[in-house]
Protein backbone atom coordinates (compact mmCIF):
# COMPACT_ATOMS: atom_id res chain seq x y z
CA UNK A 1 0.00 0.00 0.00
CA UNK A 2 1.36 3.41 -0.93
CA UNK A 3 2.14 6.08 1.64
CA UNK A 4 -0.65 8.25 0.25
CA UNK A 5 -3.22 5.49 0.81
CA UNK A 6 -1.99 4.97 4.37
CA UNK A 7 -2.31 8.72 5.00
CA UNK A 8 -5.80 8.79 3.47
CA UNK A 9 -7.07 5.88 5.56
CA UNK A 10 -5.37 7.01 8.78
CA UNK A 11 -6.78 10.54 8.46
CA UNK A 12 -10.27 9.19 7.68
CA UNK A 13 -10.18 7.00 10.79
CA UNK A 14 -8.88 9.89 12.92
CA UNK A 15 -11.56 12.28 11.69
CA UNK A 16 -14.31 9.71 12.25
CA UNK A 17 -13.14 9.07 15.81
CA UNK A 18 -13.31 12.84 16.43
CA UNK A 19 -16.90 12.91 15.14
CA UNK A 20 -17.90 9.92 17.25
CA UNK A 21 -16.12 11.22 20.35
CA UNK A 22 -18.51 14.16 20.59
CA UNK A 23 -21.40 11.84 21.34
CA UNK A 24 -19.34 9.50 23.55
CA UNK A 25 -16.66 11.34 25.57
CA UNK A 26 -17.85 12.48 29.04
CA UNK A 27 -19.13 16.02 28.60
CA UNK A 28 -17.18 17.46 31.52
CA UNK A 29 -13.94 17.05 29.51
CA UNK A 30 -15.26 18.80 26.41
CA UNK A 31 -17.16 21.37 28.46
CA UNK A 32 -13.98 22.85 29.99
CA UNK A 33 -13.70 26.47 28.81
CA UNK A 34 -10.02 26.06 27.85
CA UNK A 35 -10.79 23.03 25.68
CA UNK A 36 -13.66 24.88 24.01
CA UNK A 37 -11.66 28.07 23.41
CA UNK A 38 -8.71 26.12 22.04
CA UNK A 39 -10.87 24.10 19.70
CA UNK A 40 -12.40 27.31 18.36
CA UNK A 41 -8.91 28.65 17.70
CA UNK A 42 -7.47 25.52 16.04
CA UNK A 43 -9.23 25.84 12.67
CA UNK A 44 -8.33 29.54 12.49
CA UNK A 45 -4.64 28.85 13.25
CA UNK A 46 -4.21 25.83 10.99
CA UNK A 47 -6.15 27.22 8.02
CA UNK A 48 -4.29 30.55 8.23
CA UNK A 49 -0.96 28.74 8.44
CA UNK A 50 -1.96 26.74 5.37
CA UNK A 51 -2.85 29.96 3.52
CA UNK A 52 0.59 31.43 4.33
CA UNK A 53 2.60 28.33 3.48
CA UNK A 54 0.70 27.43 0.32
CA UNK A 55 1.12 31.01 -0.92
CA UNK A 56 4.79 31.62 -0.16
CA UNK A 57 6.55 28.26 0.24
CA UNK A 58 8.16 26.06 -2.38
CA UNK A 59 9.44 23.17 -0.30
CA UNK A 60 11.47 24.90 2.42
CA UNK A 61 12.12 28.09 0.44
CA UNK A 62 9.98 31.23 0.65
CA UNK A 63 9.16 33.00 -2.63
CA UNK A 64 6.75 35.62 -3.93
CA UNK A 65 5.20 34.47 -7.20
CA UNK A 66 1.90 34.38 -9.10
CA UNK A 67 0.22 32.61 -6.17
CA UNK A 68 0.47 35.81 -4.09
CA UNK A 69 -1.35 37.78 -6.78
CA UNK A 70 -3.92 34.99 -6.84
CA UNK A 71 -4.38 35.28 -3.08
CA UNK A 72 -4.90 39.05 -3.27
CA UNK A 73 -7.52 38.47 -5.97
CA UNK A 74 -9.17 35.88 -3.71
CA UNK A 75 -9.34 38.41 -0.85
CA UNK A 76 -11.01 40.94 -3.15
CA UNK A 77 -13.52 38.28 -4.19
CA UNK A 78 -14.21 37.46 -0.52
CA UNK A 79 -14.71 41.14 0.32
CA UNK A 80 -17.27 41.22 -2.49
CA UNK A 81 -18.96 38.19 -0.86
CA UNK A 82 -18.30 35.87 -3.78
CA UNK A 83 -19.12 32.18 -3.26
CA UNK A 84 -16.36 29.63 -2.62
CA UNK A 85 -15.95 28.41 -6.17
CA UNK A 86 -15.72 31.95 -7.56
CA UNK A 87 -13.00 32.82 -5.02
CA UNK A 88 -10.97 29.79 -6.09
CA UNK A 89 -11.49 30.43 -9.83
CA UNK A 90 -10.59 34.12 -9.55
CA UNK A 91 -7.31 33.21 -7.82
CA UNK A 92 -6.47 30.55 -10.38
CA UNK A 93 -7.32 32.81 -13.33
CA UNK A 94 -5.23 35.67 -11.91
CA UNK A 95 -2.17 33.46 -11.47
CA UNK A 96 -2.63 31.83 -14.88
CA UNK A 97 -3.02 35.20 -16.62
CA UNK A 98 0.09 36.65 -14.96
CA UNK A 99 2.12 33.62 -16.04
CA UNK A 100 0.67 33.64 -19.52
CA UNK A 101 1.69 37.25 -20.09
CA UNK A 102 5.10 36.65 -18.59
CA UNK A 103 4.72 38.77 -15.41
CA UNK A 104 5.43 35.93 -13.02
Amino acid at each position, binding site marked *: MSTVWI*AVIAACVGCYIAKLAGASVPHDILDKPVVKA*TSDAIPIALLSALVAV*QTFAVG*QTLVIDARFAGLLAAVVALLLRAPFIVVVLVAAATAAALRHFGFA
Partner: protein
Amino acid sequence: MIHEWHIRRRTILLNALSVGLATGAYGISFGAISVLGGLTVLQTQTLSVLMFTGGSQFALVGVLAAGGGAASAVATSVLLGLRNAFYGVTMAPMLNVSGPTRLVAAQLTIDESTAMGVAQSEEPDNFHGSKLAFWATGLSVFVFWNLATFAGAMGAQALGDPKVWGLDAAIPAGFIALVWPRLHDRRSWSIALCAGAVALILTPFLRPGVPVLLTSIVAVVAGVLAVRRRTEQIESSAVGKS
Protein backbone atom coordinates in the same frame (compact mmCIF):
# COMPACT_ATOMS: atom_id res chain seq x y z
CA MET B 1 -50.70 22.35 14.21
CA ILE B 2 -50.17 19.53 11.73
CA HIS B 3 -50.51 22.05 8.95
CA GLU B 4 -47.83 24.25 10.53
CA TRP B 5 -45.42 21.33 10.76
CA HIS B 6 -46.10 20.55 7.11
CA ILE B 7 -44.97 24.04 6.08
CA ARG B 8 -41.98 23.99 8.41
CA ARG B 9 -40.95 20.55 7.13
CA ARG B 10 -41.02 21.84 3.56
CA THR B 11 -38.85 24.83 4.48
CA ILE B 12 -36.33 22.63 6.29
CA LEU B 13 -36.08 20.24 3.34
CA LEU B 14 -35.66 23.09 0.84
CA ASN B 15 -32.96 24.66 3.00
CA ALA B 16 -31.19 21.31 3.25
CA LEU B 17 -31.28 20.97 -0.52
CA SER B 18 -29.85 24.43 -1.14
CA VAL B 19 -27.08 23.99 1.44
CA GLY B 20 -26.22 20.69 -0.27
CA LEU B 21 -26.03 22.37 -3.67
CA ALA B 22 -23.92 25.25 -2.34
CA THR B 23 -21.49 22.85 -0.66
CA GLY B 24 -21.36 20.83 -3.85
CA ALA B 25 -19.85 23.81 -5.62
CA TYR B 26 -16.85 23.63 -3.40
CA GLY B 27 -16.71 19.88 -3.69
CA ILE B 28 -15.77 20.47 -7.32
CA SER B 29 -12.79 22.56 -6.19
CA PHE B 30 -11.79 19.85 -3.73
CA GLY B 31 -11.93 17.10 -6.37
CA ALA B 32 -9.88 19.14 -8.81
CA ILE B 33 -7.29 20.33 -6.31
CA SER B 34 -6.85 16.83 -4.89
CA VAL B 35 -6.17 15.21 -8.27
CA LEU B 36 -3.90 18.05 -9.37
CA GLY B 37 -2.12 17.71 -6.02
CA GLY B 38 -1.19 14.15 -6.96
CA LEU B 39 -3.91 11.95 -5.45
CA THR B 40 -5.78 9.45 -7.62
CA VAL B 41 -9.49 9.82 -8.36
CA LEU B 42 -10.17 6.84 -6.08
CA GLN B 43 -8.16 8.32 -3.18
CA THR B 44 -9.95 11.64 -3.68
CA GLN B 45 -13.37 9.99 -3.65
CA THR B 46 -12.44 7.87 -0.61
CA LEU B 47 -11.75 11.10 1.28
CA SER B 48 -15.14 12.56 0.40
CA VAL B 49 -16.99 9.37 1.41
CA LEU B 50 -15.06 8.32 4.51
CA MET B 51 -13.58 11.56 5.85
CA PHE B 52 -16.45 13.80 4.76
CA THR B 53 -15.32 17.01 6.42
CA GLY B 54 -14.11 19.63 3.94
CA GLY B 55 -11.40 21.51 5.84
CA SER B 56 -9.63 18.29 6.86
CA GLN B 57 -9.79 16.94 3.31
CA PHE B 58 -8.26 20.12 1.87
CA ALA B 59 -5.60 20.08 4.58
CA LEU B 60 -4.53 16.49 3.93
CA VAL B 61 -4.28 17.10 0.20
CA GLY B 62 -2.58 20.48 0.65
CA VAL B 63 0.14 19.20 2.96
CA LEU B 64 0.83 16.12 0.79
CA ALA B 65 0.92 18.25 -2.38
CA ALA B 66 3.41 20.63 -0.77
CA GLY B 67 5.77 17.71 -0.15
CA GLY B 68 4.92 17.29 3.52
CA GLY B 69 5.25 13.93 5.24
CA ALA B 70 2.28 11.61 5.65
CA ALA B 71 2.39 11.98 9.45
CA SER B 72 2.10 15.77 9.46
CA ALA B 73 -0.58 15.62 6.76
CA VAL B 74 -2.65 13.20 8.86
CA ALA B 75 -2.08 15.16 12.08
CA THR B 76 -3.12 18.50 10.50
CA SER B 77 -6.18 16.89 8.98
CA VAL B 78 -7.30 15.24 12.23
CA LEU B 79 -6.67 18.41 14.28
CA LEU B 80 -8.94 20.31 11.90
CA GLY B 81 -11.54 17.57 12.33
CA LEU B 82 -11.56 17.91 16.13
CA ARG B 83 -14.20 20.66 15.97
CA ASN B 84 -16.69 18.02 14.82
CA ALA B 85 -16.41 16.46 18.29
CA PHE B 86 -17.87 19.66 19.74
CA TYR B 87 -20.64 19.59 17.16
CA GLY B 88 -21.38 16.05 18.40
CA VAL B 89 -21.72 17.35 21.96
CA THR B 90 -24.17 20.00 20.76
CA MET B 91 -26.23 17.65 18.61
CA ALA B 92 -26.37 14.55 20.87
CA PRO B 93 -29.20 15.74 23.16
CA MET B 94 -31.26 16.88 20.16
CA LEU B 95 -30.76 13.73 18.09
CA ASN B 96 -31.05 11.26 20.96
CA VAL B 97 -29.86 8.30 18.85
CA SER B 98 -28.17 5.03 19.80
CA GLY B 99 -26.68 1.93 18.20
CA PRO B 100 -25.98 1.89 14.44
CA THR B 101 -27.96 5.11 13.91
CA ARG B 102 -25.50 6.90 16.17
CA LEU B 103 -22.60 5.66 14.03
CA VAL B 104 -24.24 7.14 10.91
CA ALA B 105 -25.17 10.37 12.72
CA ALA B 106 -21.51 10.76 13.75
CA GLN B 107 -20.36 10.61 10.12
CA LEU B 108 -22.88 13.31 9.18
CA THR B 109 -21.84 15.60 12.06
CA ILE B 110 -20.23 18.50 10.16
CA ASP B 111 -20.40 22.32 10.03
CA GLU B 112 -23.50 22.48 7.83
CA SER B 113 -25.69 19.79 9.45
CA THR B 114 -24.92 21.11 12.95
CA ALA B 115 -25.62 24.73 12.00
CA MET B 116 -28.96 23.79 10.43
CA GLY B 117 -29.88 21.51 13.35
CA VAL B 118 -29.08 24.20 15.93
CA ALA B 119 -31.02 26.81 13.94
CA GLN B 120 -34.18 24.70 14.32
CA SER B 121 -33.68 23.96 18.02
CA GLU B 122 -35.43 26.97 19.49
CA GLU B 123 -38.99 25.77 19.36
CA PRO B 124 -40.20 23.41 22.13
CA ASP B 125 -41.10 20.49 19.90
CA ASN B 126 -39.00 17.65 21.26
CA PHE B 127 -36.35 18.64 18.68
CA HIS B 128 -38.44 17.41 15.75
CA GLY B 129 -37.22 20.25 13.54
CA SER B 130 -33.60 19.85 14.66
CA LYS B 131 -33.61 16.15 13.89
CA LEU B 132 -35.07 16.67 10.44
CA ALA B 133 -32.74 19.59 9.66
CA PHE B 134 -29.67 17.65 10.81
CA TRP B 135 -30.44 14.49 8.86
CA ALA B 136 -31.72 16.22 5.73
CA THR B 137 -28.78 18.63 5.57
CA GLY B 138 -26.22 15.93 6.38
CA LEU B 139 -27.52 13.59 3.69
CA SER B 140 -27.99 16.34 1.12
CA VAL B 141 -24.43 17.62 1.64
CA PHE B 142 -23.10 14.03 1.56
CA VAL B 143 -24.72 13.32 -1.81
CA PHE B 144 -23.79 16.60 -3.51
CA TRP B 145 -20.32 16.77 -1.96
CA ASN B 146 -19.51 13.33 -3.34
CA LEU B 147 -21.01 13.91 -6.78
CA ALA B 148 -19.13 17.19 -7.04
CA THR B 149 -15.88 15.64 -5.85
CA PHE B 150 -16.17 13.06 -8.62
CA ALA B 151 -16.90 15.71 -11.26
CA GLY B 152 -13.99 17.88 -10.10
CA ALA B 153 -11.58 14.96 -9.95
CA MET B 154 -12.48 13.68 -13.42
CA GLY B 155 -12.34 17.21 -14.86
CA ALA B 156 -8.92 17.85 -13.36
CA GLN B 157 -7.59 14.62 -14.80
CA ALA B 158 -8.30 16.03 -18.24
CA LEU B 159 -6.61 19.38 -17.54
CA GLY B 160 -2.93 18.51 -17.35
CA ASP B 161 -0.34 20.89 -15.86
CA PRO B 162 -1.83 22.61 -12.77
CA LYS B 163 0.57 25.58 -13.01
CA VAL B 164 -0.65 26.59 -16.47
CA TRP B 165 -4.19 26.82 -15.10
CA GLY B 166 -3.08 28.66 -11.96
CA LEU B 167 -4.33 25.82 -9.80
CA ASP B 168 -1.39 26.13 -7.43
CA ALA B 169 -2.94 29.52 -6.59
CA ALA B 170 -6.34 27.86 -6.15
CA ILE B 171 -5.08 25.96 -3.09
CA PRO B 172 -4.29 28.98 -0.85
CA ALA B 173 -7.45 30.65 -2.18
CA GLY B 174 -9.44 27.61 -1.04
CA PHE B 175 -7.90 27.80 2.43
CA ILE B 176 -8.54 31.53 2.81
CA ALA B 177 -12.15 31.01 1.72
CA LEU B 178 -12.48 28.32 4.41
CA VAL B 179 -11.04 30.51 7.19
CA TRP B 180 -12.71 33.78 6.11
CA PRO B 181 -16.10 33.22 7.83
CA ARG B 182 -14.24 32.53 11.11
CA LEU B 183 -12.43 35.89 11.06
CA HIS B 184 -15.08 38.01 12.71
CA ASP B 185 -13.25 39.93 15.45
CA ARG B 186 -9.84 41.19 16.56
CA ARG B 187 -9.10 38.00 18.46
CA SER B 188 -9.63 35.73 15.46
CA TRP B 189 -7.59 38.04 13.23
CA SER B 190 -4.68 38.02 15.70
CA ILE B 191 -4.74 34.22 15.84
CA ALA B 192 -4.76 34.08 12.02
CA LEU B 193 -1.89 36.54 11.58
CA CYS B 194 0.21 34.96 14.35
CA ALA B 195 -0.27 31.48 12.92
CA GLY B 196 0.59 32.65 9.39
CA ALA B 197 3.74 34.38 10.61
CA VAL B 198 4.86 31.43 12.76
CA ALA B 199 4.36 29.01 9.84
CA LEU B 200 6.44 31.18 7.49
CA ILE B 201 9.22 31.75 10.02
CA LEU B 202 9.53 27.99 10.63
CA THR B 203 9.30 26.99 6.95
CA PRO B 204 13.04 27.21 6.10
CA PHE B 205 13.98 25.07 9.09
CA LEU B 206 11.46 22.24 9.11
CA ARG B 207 10.05 19.66 6.72
CA PRO B 208 6.98 20.87 4.77
CA GLY B 209 3.85 20.23 6.81
CA VAL B 210 5.51 20.49 10.23
CA PRO B 211 5.36 24.33 10.49
CA VAL B 212 1.60 24.27 9.87
CA LEU B 213 1.11 21.60 12.50
CA LEU B 214 3.13 23.58 15.06
CA THR B 215 0.80 26.56 14.74
CA SER B 216 -1.71 24.54 16.78
CA ILE B 217 0.42 25.79 19.70
CA VAL B 218 -0.74 29.30 18.76
CA ALA B 219 -4.30 28.00 19.10
CA VAL B 220 -3.61 26.53 22.56
CA VAL B 221 -2.05 29.81 23.75
CA ALA B 222 -5.02 31.74 22.32
CA GLY B 223 -7.42 29.37 24.10
CA VAL B 224 -5.68 29.78 27.47
CA LEU B 225 -5.49 33.58 27.08
CA ALA B 226 -9.16 33.83 26.13
CA VAL B 227 -10.26 31.91 29.21
CA ARG B 228 -7.95 33.87 31.51
CA ARG B 229 -9.27 37.15 30.14
CA ARG B 230 -12.86 36.03 30.59
CA THR B 231 -12.16 34.98 34.19
CA GLU B 232 -10.53 38.36 34.92
CA GLN B 233 -13.53 40.15 33.46
CA ILE B 234 -15.90 38.15 35.63
CA GLU B 235 -13.77 38.78 38.72
CA SER B 236 -13.48 42.52 38.08
CA SER B 237 -17.22 42.85 37.48
CA ALA B 238 -17.81 40.91 40.73
CA VAL B 239 -15.51 43.32 42.57
CA GLY B 240 -17.33 46.26 40.97
CA LYS B 241 -20.64 45.00 42.30
CA SER B 242 -19.51 44.36 45.88
